[in-house]
């Protein structure tokens, strides 16, 4: 799961996969704006065939938070 998330994030941000870890901060390390995060989440929804409610997304701070949520789905 984490690998797939890193792959999507790497494609969106053009950051090297090696530099993205579970601890990477979406805002500080990957420099994603709140609107970017929404776009990335849409990519995850399409990839994994699930729906992530908007009110859950605001709690995502790191890549690990995203992975943890997706693993429970």
């Amino acid at each position: 799961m984490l690998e797939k998330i890193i792959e999507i994030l790497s494609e969106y941000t053009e950051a090297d996969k090696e530099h993205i870890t579970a601890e990477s901060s979406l805002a500080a390390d990957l420099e994603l704006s709140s609107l970017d995060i929404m776009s990335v989440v849409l990519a995850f929804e399409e990839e994994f065939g699930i729906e992530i409610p908007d009110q859950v997304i605001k709690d995502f701070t790191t890549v690990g938070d995203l992975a943890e949520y997706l693993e429970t789905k």
Partner: protein
Amino acid sequence: MQNRPYDLYALPKIGSLKDMLIQKKTDRPCGVAFAFSKGRDGIAEKTYQDVYEEVCALGTWMYRQGMKEKHIAVIGENSYEWLLCFFAAVIGGNVAVPIDKELPTEEIAELLHKADVQVVFASETYGNVVSGTDCMVYSMGDMEQFLAEGRQYIEAGDRTFLDYSIDSRKLCCIMFTSGTSGKSKGVMLSHRNIVEDINGSCQLVVLGGSTVSVLPFHHAFGLIVGVFMVYHYGFTIFLNKSLKTVQKDMQAVSPQVMFLVPLFVETFHRQIWAAAKKEGRDRMLKRLMKISDFLLSFGIDIRKKIFASVLRAFGGNLEYIICGGAPLGVQYIREFRSFGIEILNGYGTTECAPCAAVNRNHFYRDGTVGVAVPNISVKVSNDGEVLVKGPIVMQGYYQDREATDQVLKDGWYATGDLGTIDADGFITLTGRKKNLIILSNGENVSPEALEADFLQNPAVKEVLVYEQDRLIAAQIYPDMEYMKEKGLQEQLQEYFEGLQRKVNYNRPIYRQVGKIILRDTEFPKNTSKKILRYGINYAEREDKC
């Protein structure tokens, strides 16, 4: 049309929001006012006739429930039901209190208390965040039932809501804005404030087609300009329900105009160039922009043809972006113009209901926020602050005389912004007088509120929060005695990263601290021992945590 002064647009003026609904249902009863996705059930449409009829039904139902002269909060995602609640509440003489759904539950409860809210209309998703308050809570999910009952009352002859006449000086809504003290202030807007802002904005800017509404309705810009102004012009407003689907919605609806904060423009810019780079056509795109700009200087416009692929991402019909809420870099305005989309930068604050100035369709100046709306006066004080006077200026801050007196003097509203006005009336903003951090998404973040949270931890001796490179940064002077006592002196980085996560917990993303900087000396202070917020040499910051 050349870029020079021209006459104001002459849309019929409205006297109230009720007047606006009646005008539209009379002139264009079958015109589509709102459209929105119903998931798998396709797209729902509401005509001007539907809107008026349903506002009357809901308003009559509200009266029957005893909702007269009440303070009624509305909380939830942008939706048609949200708008019905707002319209029905204020047209019936109640005071609407739009609430930011993303705030922590405790803060929402605090705002409801502060605004003396007695009734709350919450969307199904956000009903739980207000369930613990003393307010009477209704779910927007039961809207069909409210409307059915309201219609029955009207059919039985109840005309109390229909016949209610609004005094335009009456308080219409209380909209919260972040204050410098870290506490939100309730901006009191009268019916007159709002309609005068709609009338004035419509005289400066002409709209020519539909829009996709993406800004939150609890913001004055998203509601009054992004919805009411378009409604008054009589074009369809597609209600976007999630920022995840903004571009999908734009491609489906093909809007002619969008009302955005800079965050959207900046993100669209990045996405355009990322896509071009991925497809190996970024250099070609830059060349085409130069060629197109050159031809355009001779009046030859081939932009729709050569930038068709870029424009398709926005639906293919987008001509204007009305941008406000935060400063926008001139480079974005010029780039989007090259593509064939004119960004009309504007200026306002919630206290000005909200639009005080905007660039016009055919009279604009890059780097400025445009000219003042025609029914107000704007001047610059001796110390460089922009002052606004006129019917759009708020009544004051709700139950906060001290804060009101600080900004309202002899009818002039002191905006806290520094600026200049040129001979043609174009206003240029040069900085903020206030401490507030204005992020590129238009959100105001109070540094004091974040600093207060950090200071609750004994390991933080001093802290200063500010914006740096589009992120909220917190510079901390740790209490090394405490850290040594706890045996944590070798783990400063981990410790404060943990504190950063704790402070960020439950905050909307835009309010989260993105960077921690540790310093090994005290902050410079003034004679009253207060940290010199603007005296910090940011170039001397310590390493990022």
